[in-house]
């Protein structure tokens, strides 16, 4: 879908006009394409205190073929290539005084950051601090990163990864994700990693090779993008949607070389039919089973609470929340069908975090998804699997295309990247969570919202 305003603002005339009028100038974001290097330029790695991660980060970057500019001093090299990413190891802070080091490193480095650059801060979780002073310093980074994200222009993002002691092995997948074009529309976010349940190596070009993925609501919009991205990354996709959407669904399945399964996920026997289907078919040339489940199907039935009838309330709750619970439970119960290192990703929404006028039903269902994911995470970890939620912000789809222009244009700009996200941005985040190497990301809620002003 075309962002005419962004295209205009980046055109010759548009640049002049938008500058003079002080209008937002949304950038063309760096998005992932197969074969692309992890970063288009070098990275700078620094530490604020006696961090434990800087060496690991440097090794990881060099492994990925990224030249690392190590800043001996806070000023850094004034000459040389401008960095495409700035990584700060902020572990080991003892109190607010140590934050001076954070400032001293970031200020000059961020100043030289390229467009579509990345600022990534790695820190200890505040909850595990030994003293109030330490907790204060750790928590301070949250405010800092969110503010940096808001100051950055040109499609650059800033994110925070919290690394508890012992979870260092989990670092590679999140670091790669946040530096790459896959995270183009993920900004101002925070992810806490945990010790990966089963550390895995993967082919970074096709990390999902041999995996079987079920995607609900795959006939169009975000679901279709998820099917495409999972297939691009090597997965065999079972595309699910309501029978009435079957023609489009077949088109997507044929496009991605997967299979179409026409199924209303709210049908009384939906869970048993999905289980039976997966038992009967042996996808990707292996025994029956599924590795990746993406609960994406969702609907809205907006009305102010006082005007909302039971039907609107119930249908939204059934599609958006109850079906996710029922299908997941059925797969857990179907002996061995959900493979050991399974990845379940549930699509929530910004409305579930920020609330939205006219969406009590929708927001309740989407907040419920977050509760479900957090509650299930330990059980999933126990079987070597993960379950996470992705909360899209304003994503440009057929749904938003039919909104009034004013509402749509304003809605699309209410974030630090000053533009709506694309379905592929949500899909990339989901595909990352589905990777074998993402075993250390569990029970998390990742917002794909360009650091939306809503519910931030």
């Amino acid at each position, binding site marked *: 879908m075309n962002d005419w305003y962004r295209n205009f603002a980046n055109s010759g005339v548009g640049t002049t006009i938008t500058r003079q009028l002080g209008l937002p100038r949304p950038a063309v974001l760096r998005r992932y394409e197969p074969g692309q290097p992890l970063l288009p330029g070098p990275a700078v790695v620094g530490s604020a205190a006696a961090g434990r991660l800087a060496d690991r980060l440097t090794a990881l970057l060099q492994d990925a073929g990224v030249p690392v500019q190590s800043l001996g001093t806070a000023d850094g090299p004034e000459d040389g290539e401008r960095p495409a990413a700035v990584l700060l190891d902020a572990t080991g802070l003892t109190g607010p005084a140590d934050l001076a080091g954070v400032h001293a490193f970031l200020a000059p480095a961020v100043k030289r950051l390229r467009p579509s650059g990345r600022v990534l801060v790695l820190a200890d979780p505040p909850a595990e601090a030994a003293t109030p002073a330490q907790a204060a310093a750790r928590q301070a980074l949250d405010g800092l990163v969110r503010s940096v994200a808001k100051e950055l222009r040109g499609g650059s993002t800033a994110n925070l990864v919290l690394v508890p002691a012992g979870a260092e092995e989990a670092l590679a997948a999140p670091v790669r994700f946040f530096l790459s074009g896959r995270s183009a529309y993920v900004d101002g976010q925070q992810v806490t990693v945990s010790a990966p349940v089963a550390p895995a190596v993967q082919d970074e070009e096709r990390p999902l090779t041999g995996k079987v993925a079920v995607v609900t609501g795959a006939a169009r919009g975000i679901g279709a993008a998820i099917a495409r991205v999972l297939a691009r990354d090597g997965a*065999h996709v079972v595309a699910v949607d309501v*029978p*009435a*959407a*079957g*023609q489009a*669904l*077949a*088109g997507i*399945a*044929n496009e991605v*070389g*997967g*299979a*179409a*399964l*026409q*199924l*209303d996920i709210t*049908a009384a*026997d939906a869970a048993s*039919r999905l289980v039976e289907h997966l038992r*009967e*078919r*042996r*996808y990707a*040339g292996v025994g029956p089973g599924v590795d990746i489940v993406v609960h994406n199907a969702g609907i809205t039935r907006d009305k102010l609470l006082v005007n909302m009838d039971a039907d609107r309330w119930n249908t939204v709750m059934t599609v958006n929340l109850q079906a996710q619970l029922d299908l997941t439970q059925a797969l857990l119960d179907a002996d061995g069908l959900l493979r050991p290192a399974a990845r379940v990703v549930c699509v929530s929404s910004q409305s579930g975090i920020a609330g939205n006028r006219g969406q009590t039903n929708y927001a309740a269902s989407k907040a419920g998804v977050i509760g479900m994911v957090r509650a299930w995470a330990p059980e999933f970890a126990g079987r070597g699997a993960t379950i996470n939620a992705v909360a899209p912000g304003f994503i440009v789809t057929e749904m938003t295309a039919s909104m009034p222009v004013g509402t749509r244009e304003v809605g699309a700009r209410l974030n630090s990247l000053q533009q709506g996200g694309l379905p592929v941005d949500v899909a990339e985040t989901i595909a990352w969570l589905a990777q074998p190497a993402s075993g250390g990301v569990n029970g998390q809620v990742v917002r794909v919202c360009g650091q939306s002003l809503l519910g931030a």
Partner: protein
Amino acid sequence: MAAPTRKAAIVGGNRIPFARSNSRYARASNQDMLTATLDGLVARFGLQDERLGEVAAGAVLKHARDFNLTRESVLGSRLAASTPAYDVQQACGTGLEAAILVANKIALGQLESGIAGGVDTTSDAPMAINEDMRRVLLAVNSAKTVQQRLKALAGIRPGQLLPEVPRNAEPRTGLSMGEHAAITAAEWEIGREEQDELAVASHRNLAAAYDRGFFDDLVTPYLGLARDQNLRPDSSPEKLATLQPVFGKGEGATMTAGNSTPLTDGASAVLLGSDEWAAAKGLPVLAHLVDAQTAAVDYVHGGEGLLMAPVHAVPVLLARNGLTLQDFDFYEVHEAFASTVLATLKAWEDPAYCKDTLGLDTPLGAIDRSKLNVNGSSLAAGHPFAATGGRIVATLAKLLHEAGPGKRGLISICAAGGQGVVAILES
């Protein structure tokens, strides 16, 4: 020694919802519909870029340009372009006959996999220039001089400009199929009420099957249509009783638009393979095609009804397989007209007819009517001639699979030209 044979497996099927003539699919050609149907099947079973043994399909009403309809549809589909294909045509028996052809090749080990299908449009039916005009144009074409050419062209008369629209009529009798069926209905004294009841059951059964999701993996929506357009879930004997007869004459006429199938557009396809092929592809086996039989009757001079050939084919098939008519869990008798189904059943119960016409010592007997067309048939779904066989094979195979292993079903399809195609499936 004959090579050992195996039974072909029915893996699944796909069809587009059937549309009423000149309606939702008015702009779709046979090739469009067959291609979409193949693509839906490919999507359901993940057959993209797969080279199948062959695709056999056909249409009853065909444009001259569609001489290679099936192959062209394969080329336009997501199947590998190296999948061979050919056209089949046996009137309303086309779809089932195509399935038998593919199944037999699989049974002989000549194929490991194949698709059988059929398609028809009565909206985009071919129109020919009429016979007089054709002669004039041939004369123009063979004229040697300008003068001769002008002379030939001068022979054109206004009446010759009218196109010839294909009629649903038997060339040898000039009677439409409905008129033929009305003769049979009168002969067998098939009442109006029982015909209407059969029609209502067809609509209700089809609607209930859709409601329980039975067709979720058998039908793929097309051009905005998600269910058969002819389906009337609220059909009732009272409503049908108000319709005027359209076939047959005078007081005794019983056949209305409600208990006869309307002209319909649509397509269907069935995926067949050897058990080994299905297993290697990780695909299920719903049922096997056990055996099949065709028959033809002399409806022109022989005094038999046009649509009575299946009545002759079934006893032959039963005898060869050591079965009685009662040895089935499901019966799929194509509802060309409600009266056809009822005459068929009545004939099998009639001792005199079975003895004199079919040469049987004992009649085949009655069937348990609760096992007949349990998920509806052509009266409700519609009947795009060549597409009906594929619809029935896939529906029955799934029914048998749901019922569990060892269940048996009988298919009986009547066809124009006094022909009939019947088959046995087993889970």
